[in-house]
């Protein structure tokens, strides 16, 4: 007969305790050690600045905590809504055009260009706009659109399409189109490269089977290619939206946010709040608001376009 004594601890308790305080194995410790430099870099470059921005967003210039007053001031400034509107318009112009153009080029090259040399040449050409500094692109774009000496006006007048100078950078609508066109020129190749690489992953057997079944190019695209490209669209939208929120150089050079504030995008607005108004509390609050808004937006987009193929 076995008797259990109430003074004795339950036999499993020490084991559980030991499991909770289990010493890491040598391999695990090595893994953590190897991760440490990367985690340290992320901590220094991302976490510390973010915490500092959070603190700054609830502080006055002298460092005293003032609660959400900076957020109230940021949200109460009508110029913020002008900047949001401008950024929204800019995104609505550039994102669909870049995706459609990038997709069209990718499909065209994927289906028509077979020679590896030509594909490599197109690849290099597509890389070029991505590696040019945005400031240089802004300066060149100004030579294209500038009043009185802009190349575009000269060409349009020479070929007889216009008989007077088009005010590309002075008219609110045209100015927005001008700054958007620079973005489209620079970033459509990025969309092309991503989608073209996605098309390489489409199994040849599936395409051939569809062709035997009589599928036309649209059906092939809709039922086969698109299936493989869908996660990449999320990637593209996420990257490009993040980029749109950071657009600065070419807008600053081309229009300076003008005429008035019609092309003053969020990044330019926050820059001015920080470096012209020297209102670092409000600028920090704006940065946090943008980050939170973008996180919510990303969540909504990722729900609509799941990363996993289903």
């Amino acid at each position, binding site marked *: 007969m076995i008797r259990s004594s109430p003074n004795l601890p339950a036999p499993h308790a020490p084991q559980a305790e030991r499991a909770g305080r289990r010493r890491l194995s*040598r391999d695990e410790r*090595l893994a953590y*050690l*190897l991760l440490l430099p990367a985690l340290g870099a992320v901590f220094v470059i991302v976490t510390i600045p973010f915490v500092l921005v959070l603190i700054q967003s609830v502080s006055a210039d002298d460092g005293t905590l003032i609660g959400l007053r900076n957020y109230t*001031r940021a949200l109460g400034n009508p110029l913020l809504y002008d900047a949001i509107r401008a950024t929204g318009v800019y995104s609505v112009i550039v994102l669909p055009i870049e995706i459609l153009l990038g997709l069209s080029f990718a499909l065209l090259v994927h289906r028509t260009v077979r020679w590896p040399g030509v594909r490599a040449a197109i690849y290099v050409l597509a890389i070029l706009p991505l590696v040019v500094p945005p400031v240089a692109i802004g300066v060149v774009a100004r030579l294209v659109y*500038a*009043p*009185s*000496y802009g190349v575009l006006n000269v060409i349009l007048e020479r070929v007889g399409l216009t008989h007077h*100078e088009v*005010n*590309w*950078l*002075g*008219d*609110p609508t045209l*100015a927005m189109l001008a700054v958007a066109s620079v973005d489209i020129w620079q970033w459509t190749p990025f969309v092309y490269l991503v989608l073209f690489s996605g098309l390489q992953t489409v199994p040849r057997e599936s395409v051939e089977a569809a062709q035997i079944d009589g599928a036309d190019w649209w059906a092939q695209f809709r039922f086969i290619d698109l299936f493989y490209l869908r996660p990449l669209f999320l990637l593209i939208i996420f990257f490009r939206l993040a980029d749109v929120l950071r657009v600065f150089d070419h807008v600053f050079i081309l*229009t*300076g*946010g*003008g*005429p*008035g*504030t*019609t092309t003053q995008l969020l990044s330019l607005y926050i820059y*001015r709040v920080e*470096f*012209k*108004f*020297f*209102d670092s509390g409000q600028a920090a609050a704006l940065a946090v608001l943008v980050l939170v808004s973008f996180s919510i937006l990303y969540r909504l987009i990722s729900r609509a376009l799941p990363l996993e193929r289903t």
Partner: protein
Amino acid sequence: MQPITRREFVKRTAVAGAMLTSIPAILEACSTGTPTSNKPSKLTIAAVQGAEDGPLKKVAPMYQSQTGITMEIVEFPYDQLFEKLVTTFQANGSSYDLCMMDDPWMPKFGTMGALQPLDSNFGFTRDSDIPSIVYDVGTWPPPRGPVPPSEQGKTQHLYGITIVGNVEMFMYRKDLASSPPGSWDDVLANAQKFNKANFYGYVIRGKATNPASSDSLPILWSFGGDIFDTSWKVVLDSTASIDAITFLTQTLKKYAEPGAENTDAGDRDRLIAIGQAFQSTTWPAEVTGVVEAAGVSQVAGKMAYIPIPKGPSGKGLGMMGNWLLGIPKGSSNGSAAADFIKWLIKTENMKTYVQNGGIPTRTSLLNDSTLGQANPYFPALAQSLAASPNWRPRTDQWNAVETIYGTAVNQAVAGLKTPKDALTAAASQIRAAMKQAGYPS
């Protein structure tokens, strides 16, 4: 050789890496811990990139050869220089021993206490050959005009010495007009008279923020308008101010170039230099850099330079845009930096500086006939300095005010708002910004 374990290898690599990465920090700590000698081996100047620092780059090697001190000039574009200096001063950094400063930055740097006083620390005194306004603009708190509330009662000190004596002037085609415009009515009459296809009667520098602000302020003042009165009350929406901006953005604009709302100084100079415009305001650096530059300009020798014409107020008020040299508080080479400034403003050295494209502040050099032949705007500049031109309001909030005001003028130039609506909205925004900064609203 005994083999080591993977664990030992990782440990040794980590230790070696940590030692290597800490070497620069250790060296830096050693260097800052050593007492600095009176004569440093190097002076570092933060300078604005462009025509303003070109002559400085040319004469700095002369000082180097005389003293053995290496002169390193670190250049930044206009906006970036300001941001760089503000962030350096906030951190009390010692990166720069001297810094070039646009005069509207003085209130910000003065309020921050970012600079070393040149008078009490290094014995700078006023020179009778240099107009007093030039010293006033480098003095903080300002010796004339309204003083920011936070600066009232503070002792005045000289913090900056002008090395580019910029004052905004007026230029017109003397080969076409028989007499200089004495007033803005004359400017308008000439604009009407000479305006024709592909030749514009007037050039407006109307790009948003700083350009539109700089271009319109002399007109605003000459019409009796202003941004603030003497007690910091915002008067930008006064009748005189609205009349001034209406004159520029509606009346004069009829004879201005297309795309004026996107025209900056470079675009203006180009129009003048290729003979497609009759007149405009201008800065000395534009004259030497483009308008009178041989081989660049088609109108070299055809332009005349005069002080800003008079407006309905009876005054023609130019605007100061001096570039000063100051010594950051964080510099440990203050004495050597001060010696360089003293050397630079000596008459004979400033003459060399002018011969290399510099803009002088010494009256004797501005009136020097030899130098005047190569620099036709010198007499106008001398007159403008003698007449005590206006400076931009001496407030550390100037950048914010300029952004709001310059955007409003740009809106009016672009026709997005009437001058009255644009200035009324701008006045309201400026009141809010100034109230936030502790000024009476």
